[in-house]
């Protein structure tokens, strides 16, 4: 099968099947699937306001998608993006609340570092247990998600909540720490963009992260070692690659990237730490990485798709009687077909290509 079919055709067909089945489900509950689809498209892509939200969500998925893909390349399945991003959010909040930054740019750098360190630290324990003790990273990272959410609840309710507030959330960050929005940045080059959406400079950091991950994976020795380790642990050990070191590095980078997602949500949008600020982006990251074939460019495209689904879904919930549970169903179908049932589409497509080649020969 040619490369373009693997990278583009298979995901597209999977997506199409997912949309068709979603349409049937919408039809079954007595709503118009065409109108619903139209609403999703206009809501997410029909205005710069919609684009702003789509890009905002996509930024989250870029980070978590990259995080999962790096671990995946090294043969590790990091399901802990959710917890690592929550801890990253804690890092951002602490950095923004307790350090008097003179300027947002310094605060952004500081918050990025704090988020990365907190996320990486949260991934370090499962990584160590995997590398040294052989405890499966899937189990431990998932358990760490629960620990992270319990920890955040405890801290937000008992420590970070300002006195007298009933809401389990931290205080707001200073006005000076407001990150420049996407509309501010685009205004510099003369492109008008809606300013009532949360898309912010984190998107650009996300794009740099994509490029950085590409360089690291395909242009550095560490990236080569990671990929070799993922392909075959035994062969890489024979080649002199230290498995403990690679496992730790892969998970630390992965956790750090997950954590950095929080700069977008906590500092870019909410300007305070709230419960549940990750909103499932850690898990969506898995689907994004699978769909993007663990390649930074693929992750970018898949993140945009899921950003569209998130924003379109929110619009759907807002303007139709389609219940909110159904939007989750649509998202789940996309994940199911592009991730879990990948082979269902891949095999027939492969067969078609093989037949076509035989026919030529």
């Amino acid at each position: 099968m040619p490369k373009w079919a693997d990278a583009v055709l298979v995901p597209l067909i999977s997506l199409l099947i997912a949309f068709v089945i979603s349409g049937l489900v919408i039809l079954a509950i007595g709503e118009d699937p065409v109108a619903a689809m139209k609403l999703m498209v206009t809501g997410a892509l029909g205005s710069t306001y919609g684009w702003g939200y789509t890009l905002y969500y996509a930024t989250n998925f870029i980070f978590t998608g990259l995080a999962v893909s790096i671990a995946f390349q090294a043969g590790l399945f990091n399901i802990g993006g959710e917890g690592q991003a929550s801890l990253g959010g804690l890092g951002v909040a602490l950095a923004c609340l307790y350090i008097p930054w003179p300027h947002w740019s310094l605060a952004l750098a500081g918050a990025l570092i704090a988020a990365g360190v907190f996320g990486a630290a949260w991934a370090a324990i499962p990584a160590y247990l995997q590398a040294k003790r052989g405890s499966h990273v899937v189990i431990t990272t998932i358990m760490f998600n629960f620990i992270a959410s319990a920890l955040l609840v405890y801290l937000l309710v008992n420590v970070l909540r300002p006195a007298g507030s009933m809401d389990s959330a931290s205080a707001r960050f200073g006005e000076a720490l407001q990150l420049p929005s996407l509309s501010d940045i685009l205004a510099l080059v003369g492109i008008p963009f809606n300013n009532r959406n949360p898309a912010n400079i984190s998107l650009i950091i996300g794009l740099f992260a994509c490029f950085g991950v590409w360089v690291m994976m395909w242009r550095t020795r560490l990236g080569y070692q990671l990929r070799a380790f993922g392909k075959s642990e035994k062969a890489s050990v024979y080649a002199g690659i230290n498995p403990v070191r690679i496992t730790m590095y892969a998970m630390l980078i992965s956790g750090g990237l997950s954590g950095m997602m929080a700069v977008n949500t906590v500092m870019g949008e909410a300007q305070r730490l709230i419960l549940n600020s990750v909103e499932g982006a850690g898990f969506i990251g898995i689907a994004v990485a699978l769909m993007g074939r663990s390649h930074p460019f693929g992750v970018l495209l898949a993140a945009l798709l899921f950003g569209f689904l998130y924003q379109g879904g929110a619009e759907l919930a807002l303007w139709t009687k389609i219940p909110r549970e159904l939007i989750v169903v649509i998202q789940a179908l996309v994940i199911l077909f592009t991730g879990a049932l990948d082979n269902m589409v891949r095999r027939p497509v492969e067969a078609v290509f093989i037949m076509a080649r035989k026919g030529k020969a």
Partner: protein
Amino acid sequence: MTLMKHLAAATATLALSAGMVAADPALIFDLGGKFDKSFNEAAYEGAQRWATETGGTYKELEMQSEAQREQALRRLAEAGSNPIVMTGFAFGDTLAQVAPDFPDTKFAIIDMVVDQPNVKSVVFTEEQGSYLVGMMAAMASKTGTVGFVGGMDIPLIRKFACGYAQGVKAVNPDATVIANMTGTTPAAWNDPVKGGELAKAQKAQGADVIYAAAGGTGIGVLQAAADEGILSIGVDSNQNYLHPGKVLTSMLKRVDNAVYDAFKAGTALEAGISVMDLAAGGVGYAMDENNAALVSDAMKGQIDKAAKLIGNGTLRVHDYMSDESCPALSF
């Protein structure tokens, strides 16, 4: 490229016209869900009453997670909904950020005070209503021990508990009040299983009347109380019908009236703080055929007397939120 341009233009006009049409009021339900049979459902009832009376339509939205509050609020305001009513204190901080961006839109928030020129804040004197049902609980209790199950542990819910305990102690100074909270996060508004467990635990400690002020969690409390053969007290909406003959009464908090009034006022909604107290009919207790056999005329007479005294200001019920302490109950 021209095709793309056409498409973009078409979608833009579509989005614009959609915004123009939707000058209807909107209602946002907080976590816990629209059909919690309690707080949010009362809001829904109020909106429905407005819709059937005026034939108008309104937008409604249920929160899926904490992080969506701002987007939901902005989106409704952006689309031209006016006024926008939201249930629950948790919107306070978000609304304080969003309201200044939409000076021409009127907002109403229930259970929280937001000081903005275009926001109407509706708060209730829950301690007064809770006091009355506390009196009734003490009169109905045979063991001298009554229970309270709260939702999320916040000052607002402690205010319910405190008023309730004061009412209980007013009838029977030796009574024991057991108070438990379901949790410390918004998830505590919708955890009927844990609510049921708490009710059973309180029964094991001797409680034979349990007051639930916990949104959707209360359904579990009422169910467990009915199963265990003890009495329960509902909250916000009239929940007497859920288990006829097993629910002593319900502390009514007329969220429905607040929503109805806001919708009715429409774009002329007046900003400021509105306190819905006992005298204004904002709070009270529910009597209907489902609990008529449980409440004797003597009980009712005594409670109505207290209600009158509270109404004219002779009897003051302590408000927990005024000083974060409660004379009748320690948390």
